[in-house]
């Protein structure tokens, strides 16, 4: 038990107020000695004074806010520490590439991503996940946590539309920093979900290389392909000066010495199978501790003083003011 504001205890002498001060509220009665001695009255008077004193006492203690000791619970789970890096650019609100000749619009990419990622999260309750969104710069979504509700909200926020920019470098570097404050469980992965690629500056490339290999992060890149986009798995070769961004980026990731796999999803089904693949790969046993805060006693004290206050009010209403 600890007190958050122990200096409030300096107010403790205030509890003696009902015993110190004489009441000047009342009726003038000509002569006290003639008033018969009545035990019940004395007891009632004493009880009332004690009740007021206890009310003041519990309010002071509530102000000091006593807290129970916080406990750490060690949890063991199967899964991974995963950070989703989600592209929020306007193009995510376009339909999937699908088959361009089907004559029917496919599902919106961001909506499908939200749906499938949500399902992915639900299927792995022991995972710790973080979320980063990005467009022209990164947007911190949620730290790596086990709180499923928080992750859901962060995913919802990160799959909303933003401006038309795809700064993958910012997103990835931000995602990497999320791993800084938590203990490694052995299985750590970044899942990059984007529908295009951008150029990375040599400086960013260097940072990403250092961070990814230094922290031993697995890297998955799911490309949500738009119609008419070049596939990163194309056999076609390009001259060095006109390599498409996506292919260049793929090559860059392959060049880093980490576990890396790229997926190309042009409909929700392929996106789901990509996620399933990642799911099957990232199944290490992870151990983490959860901090459970101690009981906050000030709430109980305030409720207690409220109940006492009601009784004092009843006493007060039984008071005789004139006769």
């Amino acid at each position, binding site marked *: 038990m600890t007190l958050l504001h122990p200096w409030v205890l300096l107010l403790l002498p205030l509890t003696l107020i009902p015993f110190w001060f*004489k*009441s*000047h*509220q*009342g*009726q*003038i*009665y*000509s*002569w*006290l000695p*003639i*008033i*018969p001695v*009545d035990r*019940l*009255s004395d007891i*009632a*008077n004493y009880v*009332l004074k004690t009740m007021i004193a206890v009310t003041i006492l519990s309010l002071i203690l509530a102000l000091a806010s006593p807290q129970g000791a916080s406990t750490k619970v060690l949890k063991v789970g199967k899964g991974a520490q995963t950070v989703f890096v989600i592209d929020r650019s306007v193009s995510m609100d376009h339909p999937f590439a699908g088959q361009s000749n089907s004559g029917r619009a496919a599902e919106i990419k961001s909506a499908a991503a939200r749906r499938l990622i949500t399902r992915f999260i639900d299927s792995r309750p022991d995972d710790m996940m973080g979320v980063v969104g990005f467009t022209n710069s990164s947007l911190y979504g949620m730290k790596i946590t086990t709180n499923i509700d928080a992750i859901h909200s962060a995913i919802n926020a990160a799959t909303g539309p933003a401006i038309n920019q795809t700064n993958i470098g910012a997103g990835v570097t931000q995602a990497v920093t999320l791993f800084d404050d938590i203990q490694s469980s052995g299985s750590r992965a970044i899942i990059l979900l984007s529908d295009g690629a951008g150029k990375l500056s040599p400086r960013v490339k260097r940072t990403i290389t250092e961070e990814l290999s230094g922290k031993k992060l697995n890297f998955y890149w799911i490309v949500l392909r738009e119609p008419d986009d070049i596939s990163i798995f194309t056999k076609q070769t390009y001259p060095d000066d006109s390599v498409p961004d996506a292919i260049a980026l793929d090559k860059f990731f392959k060049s880093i010495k980490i576990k890396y796999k790229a997926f190309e999803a042009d409909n929700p089904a392929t996106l789901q199978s990509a996620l399933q693949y990642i799911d099957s790969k990232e199944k290490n046993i992870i151990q983490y501790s959860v901090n459970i805060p101690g009981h906050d006693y000030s709430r109980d004290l305030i409720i207690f003083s409220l109940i006492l206050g009601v009784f004092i009010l009843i*006493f007060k209403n*039984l*008071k*005789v003011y004139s*006769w």
Partner: protein
Amino acid sequence: MIPAYAKPFTYQIPWKSSSVHSGDHRGSQRGLGFEYRGNLSLVDHPDVRRIDLRQTLRDPYEQIQVKLFNQDNTTPIFAVCDCSSSMQFKGRTRKLDIAKEIAASIAYSAFEMSDLFSFIAYNEQVIEELTLPLSHHVHQSFELIEQLTNYQKLRISAEGILEVPQYLSQHKGLVFWISDFHMPIHLIEQAFNAMSAHQIVPIVLWDEHEYKKLPKFGFGNMIDPETGLSRSIFFREAVRVQFEQAFVERKQTLEALFARFDTQALYVSDRFDADAVSHYFEEYMSL
């Protein structure tokens, strides 16, 4: 102007006044009166108008006898008023206001009987500015007594009664002691002893709200105006009974004390009735 609350009553005194002034009470002074005192020979008392023919004829020494009479004289009347804080108690009327009515009535009655009147107020000591020496100046008395209306001093006791005897006359007088008698019994006894030269009429002001008409149920914080102390009482039927009992006992104690000093108390509750005083004198002070 005579205030409306001054209601005269009639009173007698059971002793012979030693005053030399002509008044309405039996005196010890020889003079023009109705009280037969005895006979003397005309030689000793040459008052031809009062020759007692019958006695003259029966006198074996054949002296001419003259009747002697006592003159009716005045007697000093005192109204001693308790101005301690307990007199501020208010049931329907403030006790001090009733005391004011009684004092004014006494002043008025004394004036009608052409007696001397003196008003003495006291709390911790005698309040000089609210005290008048013996005089016939009834209007001055009225004005002074009227000042009690605004007298509201709290936290002051009634110890000053012990100083009052110094302000009384040397001749035996009639002293109306107007008080609630809410003071230690030994103090009352001491005061009676000090004033034993006089005939004292204790007028006990007890309000019905003090013991009969108490609150039926609830908490009351009773503050003693003299000491400032307070006690909380949880009023209910049992307590009301106890209160009445306490006052019955108090009355018995007071009456036992008054009886020892050969006097009877006159109880006044929330209204002063001048006839009650007249009856009191007929009952206890007639010849």
